[in-house]
């Protein structure tokens, strides 16, 4: 099981703030995103997306382990 979180415009687009997923063996962050799109029926293609694994910025090629917290969000605009 992994916990997936969404923020800002991604959260609004998906209509939810989080989802729990069964992890598929050998998954990367990119594959988690594909699972999310499948479940929600919403495509995020063309969006500028960033990802975090366990609250640290990671590339989409990052492997995912069971129990991880994965997050997807648009470029940050704080400060």
């Amino acid at each position: 099981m992994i916990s997936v979180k969404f923020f800002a415009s991604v959260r609004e687009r998906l209509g939810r703030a989080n989802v729990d997923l069964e992890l598929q063996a050998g998954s990367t962050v990119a594959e988690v995103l594909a699972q999310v799109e499948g479940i929600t029926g919403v495509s995020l293609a063309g969006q500028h997306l960033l990802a975090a694994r366990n609250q640290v910025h990671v590339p989409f090629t990052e492997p995912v382990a069971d129990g991880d917290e994965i997050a997807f969000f648009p470029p940050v605009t704080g400060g």
Partner: protein
Amino acid sequence: MTVRVQQEAFHLGAELLAHAQPTAGAVVSFLGTVRDYSDAADILAMEIEHYPGMTERELERVAQEAQRRYDILDSLIIHRYGRLAPQDPIVLVAVWSLHRAAAFDACRYLIDVLKTSAPFWKKEITPAGARWVTDCPGCRAGTQHGHVHPDVLEEC
């Protein structure tokens, strides 16, 4: 080194006093406030969303990195979230050092890196409705410290 993420307003003068460093000869601070307008639309309010947990971690990481890179005595970062009004303070970065060059360099480093890595998102409330601020400083040429986003799915 202090990092705070909070909904409440803060007062620059009080914060600098509270974190005063007796041995410092220089303090450089940056205060970012909500502007009145943006792209010719009046701003009625600003809503700031963040990623609780990751935000604090990320700010602590950049504060530690500044401490490693520059000859500074201490730093303070306060960033607000929630609904803010025009002219409200959003972010304060302050750096104490013996000599001014290190404080200027570290303060600028902190705000530059924070803006491209700390998970905050701004939504402007205007008379025409609400809209996410989509500006991606790291995607623009000339960002001082480069594009820190580790990856993107699509070009911005």
